[in-house]
């Protein structure tokens, strides 16, 4: 800035009129000149799984504005605050710009060639010494479907380790497992349209107002409200979503299985089931009916803390609904009983026939923008196209599609994410490769994770941002392109395949993950074998279409062009299982007897609070992205702990006190205390977004035996006033 400008600003002759001027956008109308774009790129939001269609304005090669796509069926032009400011993350100051290799303890910039050569050399060296399975790879629901598919091949057929999983195991693995338990396959049967057209919507452990705000238009009081629709929210906390509800069931933590079984009990007792549907499409009904007989309203009331008449009322509402919709999110999934809870929810839908019809579905509202795409195309808990590792026919199909020997395909699932971490501590995993995920903040029981990260011989962190708390541990940091810098598809919660487009070029030397995978394959000498003739993600999509053809998640009819033109296409149509035929051996869904067990770590005299964790609307996951957006960061710059006034009075704590949360594992210090009746006495809540006050220092390393998902939602803690510094 010239001295003259400086003086003119100081005395107020220059008030930056240009920066604060307005101009005419041909479509949107008057807007700040700074938001005026030359071109608009149609794409899909890269934050959550709602999958909002958006338009990103570009001027002089920079993304300058974000708008909801008014023609998109998911969001009809609306966006949440994260989407509205998403363009700001692209040139955020925290972007990773060059490969970094740790030399003499310090990360120093290196060329891509040196970085990738070193990576292949170190990993293959470790595998030569400790076995192929000594490499563990953790991908993410932030990658494109095309990239995730490419990665799976690279890991399992290139590096030849079976241990490939995603951070989605921290998120929706229980939904996957639960769907498989009941229906024989993953795949959310419903769609958002069902949410809007159901006459009873039951949300269990799902705070959509904070986490999926745009879905609220379908169940809130807004313009989309259907007369006569009842919204029931089951949550131990008075969330923003609970405030939208007609009925809020303020349940005791982990009372959900008892509640669901109790509703089944009432439905069966009062004849509100659909016997024809049960007879035609389910197995094990008799055993199920006998099992839930014990879940009388009084019994359930004891476990859940809910009045028996409220439970009866909700059961009758759901049972008598023309179309009943059950949605759930992390309150169900983030549990060591998550998978069976999902099965219990599916039970309700099956015995009432609230599935496969307009407005009727048991529906997992998932987490990340492409959690679904990675579920379908991944080599994690299943082979691509919802195929099973242990099914020889499935392996043979894939071997033929790929032109390889079926013996090369693993016959069993490799280690799940938590098992890789434990494996690293135990010494079985010697190299770890994290892609676009930040386990230091997101993985439970930080101390064990830290031990794992420090135990491995080689740790690669591939991310769009650096430094992150995880890249601080890395031996090698690979700078990756992020949303807005690459082209492909995401699939949202309702199975809608959406096109994601390149808006700008990645900063510095950052490269799309897809390019990194291909470059590694070339170094491993498997590029032509695994990716014959591939140059872009379009080639990966073409193969994925062939691989998914004829499967439940069939992408083969949907070209990129069609997907883009139609603002996304739902594979499987608007809903699955309309014919009542399920992908099980006999075509019938299974009813499961789901026991209700107390959560693992119960409070006692010393650790006398149940800590619940969750999110806030302004932030995304571990804030690697949203901390780049000053506006979002300014709105919520730090974590807080919610505590009921009754407890605060007992502990002589005051609002805004800095408190320390202590569990058997570690403690979190200096968290701002909010005294509020949002939480029940004996419970406290804190958001998990903040590395500085990381809730996962105290959370519990307990995992669902089926889905391997961590039990983030309940652990025993005590709370003290932080000592002054």
């Amino acid at each position, binding site marked *: 800035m010239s001295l003259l400008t400086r003086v003119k600003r100081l005395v107020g002759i220059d008030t930056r009129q240009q920066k604060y001027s307005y101009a005419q956008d041909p479509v949107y109308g008057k807007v700040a000149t700074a938001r005026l774009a030359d071109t608009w790129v149609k794409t899909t939001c890269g934050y959550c799984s709602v999958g909002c269609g958006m338009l990103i304005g570009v001027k002089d090669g920079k993304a300058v504005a974000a708008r909801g796509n008014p023609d998109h069926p998911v969001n009809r032009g609306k966006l949440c*605050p994260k989407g509205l400011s998403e363009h700001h993350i692209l040139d955020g100051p925290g972007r990773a710009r060059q490969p970094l290799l740790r030399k003499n303890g310090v990360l120093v910039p290196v060329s891509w060639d040196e970085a990738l050569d070193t990576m292949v050399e170190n990993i293959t060296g470790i595998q030569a010494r400790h076995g192929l399975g000594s490499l563990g790879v953790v991908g993410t629901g932030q990658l494109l479907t095309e990239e995730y598919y490419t990665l799976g091949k690279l890991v399992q057929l290139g590096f030849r380790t079976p241990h490939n999983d995603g951070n989605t195991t921290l998120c929706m693995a229980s939904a996957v497992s639960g769907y498989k338990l009941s229906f024989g396959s993953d795949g959310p049967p419903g769609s958002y349209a069902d949410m809007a*057209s159901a006459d009873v919507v039951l949300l269990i452990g799902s705070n959509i107002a904070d986490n999926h705000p745009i879905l609220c*238009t379908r169940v809130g009081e807004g313009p989309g409200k259907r007369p006569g629709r009842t919204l029931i929210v089951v949550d131990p906390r008075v969330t923003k979503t609970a405030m*939208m509800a007609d009925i809020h069931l303020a349940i005791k933590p982990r009372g959900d299985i008892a509640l669901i079984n109790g509703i089944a009990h009432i439905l069966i007792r009062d004849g509100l089931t659909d016997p024809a549907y049960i007879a035609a499409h389910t197995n094990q009904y008799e055993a199920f009916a006998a099992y839930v007989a014990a879940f009388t309203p009084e019994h359930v009331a004891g476990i859940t803390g809910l009045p028996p008449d409220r439970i009866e009322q909700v059961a009758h509402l759901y049972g008598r609904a023309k179309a009943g919709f059950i949605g759930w999110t992390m309150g169900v999934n983030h549990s060591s009983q998550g998978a069976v809870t999902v099965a219990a929810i599916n039970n309700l839908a099956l015995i009432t026939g609230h599935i496969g019809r307009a*407005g009727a579905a048991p529906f997992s509202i998932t987490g990340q923008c492409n959690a679904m795409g990675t579920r379908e195309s991944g080599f994690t808990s299943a082979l691509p196209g919802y195929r099973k590792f242990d099914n020889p026919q499935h392996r043979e199909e894939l071997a033929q599609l790929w032109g390889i020997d079926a013996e090369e395909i693993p016959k069993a699932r490799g280690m799940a994410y938590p098992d890789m971490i434990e494996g690293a501590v135990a010494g079985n995993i010697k190299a770890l490769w994290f892609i676009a995920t930040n386990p230091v903040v997101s993985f439970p029981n930080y101390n064990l994770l830290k031990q794992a990260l420090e135990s491995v011989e080689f740790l690669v962190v591939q991310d769009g941002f650096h430094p992150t708390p995880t890249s601080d541990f890395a031996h090698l940091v690979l700078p990756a392109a992020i949303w807005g810098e690459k082209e492909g598809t995401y699939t949202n919660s309702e199975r809608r395949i959406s096109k994601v487009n390149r808006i700008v070029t990645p900063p510095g030397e950052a490269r799309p993950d897809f390019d990194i995978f291909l470059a590694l394959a070339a170094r491993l000498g498997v590029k032509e074998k695994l990716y014959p003739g591939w140059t872009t993600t379009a080639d990966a999509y073409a193969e994925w279409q062939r691989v998914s053809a004829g499967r439940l998640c069939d992408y083969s009819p949907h070209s990129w062009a069609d997907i883009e033109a139609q603002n996304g296409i739902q594979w499987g149509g608007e809903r699955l299982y309309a014919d009542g035929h399920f992908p099980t051996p006999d075509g019938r869904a299974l009813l499961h007897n789901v026991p209700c067990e107390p959560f693992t770590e119960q409070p006692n005299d010393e650790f006398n609070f149940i800590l619940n964790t969750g999110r806030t609307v302004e932030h995304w996951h571990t804030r690697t992205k949203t901390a780049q957006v000053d506006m979002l960061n300014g709105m919520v*710059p730090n974590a807080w702990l919610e505590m009921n006034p009754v407890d605060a009075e007992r502990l002589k704590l*005051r609002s805004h006190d800095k408190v320390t949360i202590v569990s058997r594992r570690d403690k979190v210090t200096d968290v701002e205390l909010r005294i509020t009746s949002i939480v029940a006495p004996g419970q406290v809540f804190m958001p998990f977004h903040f590395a500085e006050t990381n809730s996962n220092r105290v959370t519990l390393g307990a995992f669902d035996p089926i889905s391997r998902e961590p039990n983030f939602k309940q652990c025993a803690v005590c709370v003290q006033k932080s000592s002054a510094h």
Partner: protein
Amino acid sequence: MNLPLHERAVEGTSPELVRLTGLSLGESGIVFPEVVSSLLPERRPGPGEQYRFHFDMTKCIGCRSCEVACNEQNNNPADILWRRIGELEAGSYPETQRHYLSMGCNHCLDADCLKGCPVDAYTKDPVTGIVLHSADACIGCSYCVWNCPYSVPQFNPERGVVGKCDMCKGRLDEGLEPACVHSCPEGAIEIELVNMAGWRADYALADSPGMPAAEQTVSTTRITLPKVAAPGTESRGLQRIDLGQLQREHAHIPLVYMTALMQAVAGALWVLLAWHALDALRLAGLLAITALALTLSTLHLGRPAYAYRALKMWRRSWLSREVLLFTLFFGALSAATVVTAARQYGFALPGWLPIALHLTAAFLGILGTLASAAIYLVPARPAWNTPYTPADFVLTAAFLGSLLAAAFADLLPALTTIFPLPALLTPLTSAFAAPTHAFALSLVCAAAWLVNQALRAWRLHRSTVFESRAAWSLLSGSALLPFTAGSVVLLLITLVCAATLHPLLALAAGFAAVLLSRYLFFVTVVPLSMALTFVRSRPAAGAHA
């Protein structure tokens, strides 16, 4: 006319319902028209009407899209939010109620921002009723920031001017929704027409928990409250959750100095007049201090180059009046100095002229001090809006004035020893020792000043108004206690120095005591504001001079 809403919508003749989209409900075959009532009025405001916001608290889910959309629309820095969200809470678990406020500008019928503005930067648009602010006209004095009961106008340090919500007038003029209205996923914000006379007669629907009373400025925003908060229902009133941590306001350091210096000069002029000690050199001294103080005052402005514009609205704004009176004071004092000097050089001038000029200056000084105090009598800042404020300013004038007048006796010989006066200027001095009752005067003034401060603090402490009690909390809180105690200690030192005939030291200590107290005056005021959220960025205290 009494057709069900949806049928009316299908007919498409109803003025409230303009947009329809067919939404198929799939296999059930029902086609259920999704009705979206327009979020804009169908026509422009007629005579006697204006636009207003309607906020529906029952629809808002607290997603904060409106805040981000507003900032994106106006390219504002991240820490300046023209639209803000507040959270309210009522009841006990599990019957807890949480609700949200989303508010831009209320485009009041009696806008205090507009009335106080010294440069006429605000206009109430004659057609739309939108309270518009002109960044070009604004000089960045922040007086509107003090005046608005909702803390709507915000000073933008990057620009040196204030900015505020203009209801996206540029968009409304084209028939488009403001950014907040456009962005709200729940349709909780809309623009309506309001008949101004009717609203003035009954604006009960503008009041809401978490909002300062609408009566002060007749806010036009209509707020639809949930049952729990609606007037006349169960009194589990929604409470603000943002008040647990008080924040210091801007210190306005240039104003701390300017007010103290101007008051010292105004007081000293009277004292010297009474002592018949107004020689040209003393007048020149007072003139120099006045020039310094007035120069300092421009540093308070975001745009010091346009300080002169502050004279413009003297018919309406106390800030303009203060500037006008102090400017006239400066003129009178200059004239008095020149004329007195001329007389001392032996020019034959009528004897009444210096006296008349001295008296004119003295009265203008007191009027300026009172106008200065009137600036702070704003209902939006209850801790200022008390009789103790003008009393403080006048008593400060007396206290510092007596000290300054007494100090001149020592100050001039001291200065002339260090810097010998050129022969040309020696006629300007006159030998004068402070009268023996000077100490008694200082003692009385200091006592009165201290009593006024103590009474103010006591009344703040006992006030029924939250913002006044909050000011007391800040004043007596551990963070500011050193300042409060320091001010009192310095006052005692002043008296000791005055008693032991060290007038220069007494003046220094007294001035420091006043500066500390004036600093506290600025930083401890707690403005009225709409409710905000619990966790939020808090700008560092005194971020804006």
